[in-house]
């Protein structure tokens, strides 16, 4: 090797970095990531001020995942005329106290209250000053107000009922946010591939402790060889279910998109809020969306089947 320059030396150092094999490393698996969190907070007692306190499962359990959009146009859903595609039925949604499948505009007061709730949580981890960030989208569903904030460093989501039901998150990376904060906008009649997740969310409606556990929790239990720990973990999972669950999805909407409707496994049909080039929806179950219908201002619609969590 001939004499090296500093740039080349650093290039060589970067080149010898061990590759991160996502297929072989359990630590990079989203299921493992979430299960580890639950194990830590569920099985550990954190003495505080000399008093041992039993901590139950994650109080903000949203897992960030990307639902695979299985459509002809790949990751960006296309507009057009509905042909022999899935017809969305107007299935009556099960009732969830404090939640509505149809969103309404958030009042300034409701938005301010939700922002304040979420700001308190972001203060511990967000590098952004959320008090100066403007919401690009806001909505109210029953007792809950939600908003999306876009800063130069991340995209933040917030859902709150002004009480004990508040959850926050971020997803700039998954949404393709660039270094200057821009989140790519799709074609006028399209939406970006749904990004979202779900998990335990205390204070949120829904959640039947006796319902079948999500597959990822079932896998977690099946991997536990100790029957006592397995029983305790299942008990913690079901307590989390009873305390409330929520799933959400959001992304960019093209300028000609007027409506986005999600079909959720289990029978829910959820209307997303479409505002300022964004769409957002959340629902109080752990079921994934199975299809999404995009409607344009001219009335044309297109429906794409969604694959499993990606």
């Amino acid at each position: 090797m001939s004499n090296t320059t500093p740039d080349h030396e650093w290039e060589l150092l970067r080149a010898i970095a061990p590759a991160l094999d996502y297929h072989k490393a359990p630590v990079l698996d989203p299921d493992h990531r979430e299960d580890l969190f639950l194990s830590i907070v569920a099985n550990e007692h954190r003495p505080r001020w000399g008093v041992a306190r039993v901590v139950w499962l994650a109080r903000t359990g949203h897992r960030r995942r990307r639902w695979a959009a299985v459509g002809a146009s790949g990751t960006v859903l296309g507009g057009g005329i509905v042909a022999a595609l899935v017809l969305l039925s107007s299935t009556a949604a099960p009732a969830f106290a404090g939640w509505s499948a149809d969103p309404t505009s958030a009042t300034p007061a409701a938005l301010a209250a939700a922002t304040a709730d979420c700001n308190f949580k972001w203060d511990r981890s967000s590098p952004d000053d959320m008090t100066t960030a403007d919401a690009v989208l806001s909505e109210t569903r029953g007792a809950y107000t939600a908003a999306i904030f876009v800063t130069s460093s991340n995209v933040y989501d917030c859902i709150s009922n002004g009480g004990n039901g508040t959850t926050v998150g971020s997803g700039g990376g998954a949404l393709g946010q660039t270094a200057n904060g821009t989140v790519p906008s799709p074609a006028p009649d399209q939406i970006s591939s749904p990004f979202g997740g779900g998990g335990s969310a205390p204070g949120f409606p829904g959640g039947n402790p006796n319902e079948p556990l999500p597959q990822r929790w079932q896998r977690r239990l099946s991997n536990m060889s100790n029957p006592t720990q397995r029983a305790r973990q299942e008990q913690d999972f079901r307590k989390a279910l009873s305390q409330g669950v929520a799933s959400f999805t959001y992304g960019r909407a093209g300028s000609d998109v007027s409506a986005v409707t999600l079909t959720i496994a289990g029978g829910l049909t959820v209307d997303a809020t479409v505002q300022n080039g964004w769409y957002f929806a959340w629902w109080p179950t752990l079921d994934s969306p199975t299809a999404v219908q995009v409607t344009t201002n001219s009335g044309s619609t297109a429906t794409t089947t969604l694959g499993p969590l990606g």
Partner: protein
Amino acid sequence: MPGSDVELFRMLYEANYERIAAYVLRRAASPEDAADAVSETFLTAWRRLDAVPRGEQGTMWLYATARRVLGNQRRSTERRHRLRERISQQPALESADLADVGVAADAFSRLRLDDQELLALIAWDGLTHRQIGAVLGCSENAAKLRASRARQRFVSELAALSTGLTTTNGIATRPECATQTGEANE
């Protein structure tokens, strides 16, 4: 509305998991060891949540904790030379690049572990000198100086390998040619 411990830990966890997992995975002896190390790092953070600083300093706290956990793992398993094996598992490169990378990997593996860590924190994890100082518990200037010296030692090893020399404490020497009476040199 005050956040509960679980909520605060969730924030810390979500903000830092990927970086810490990548840091650990590049250094652990196996994917399973990496999983153990990540688990222990965040378990430590949960147990000592009150001591974890806010924001970026919290991230550096986690790096420092992960570093200690890996050190303990390394001492217990005595696996110190995994880098060469990992290089061979990486995707194939251009022949010329592969040769350079191979030499670079050899040179890197000959460095002291402290030097390896300093250079890796910069090249693999993208930390600044100030951040490295926070992880290692020294000033930014001290981190900058140590990184400079580590790079110089890396360059010395590169040069030595390129010319067939070996180095001892950064000083190039010619390998001793061992011969035995009555046997011909090959």
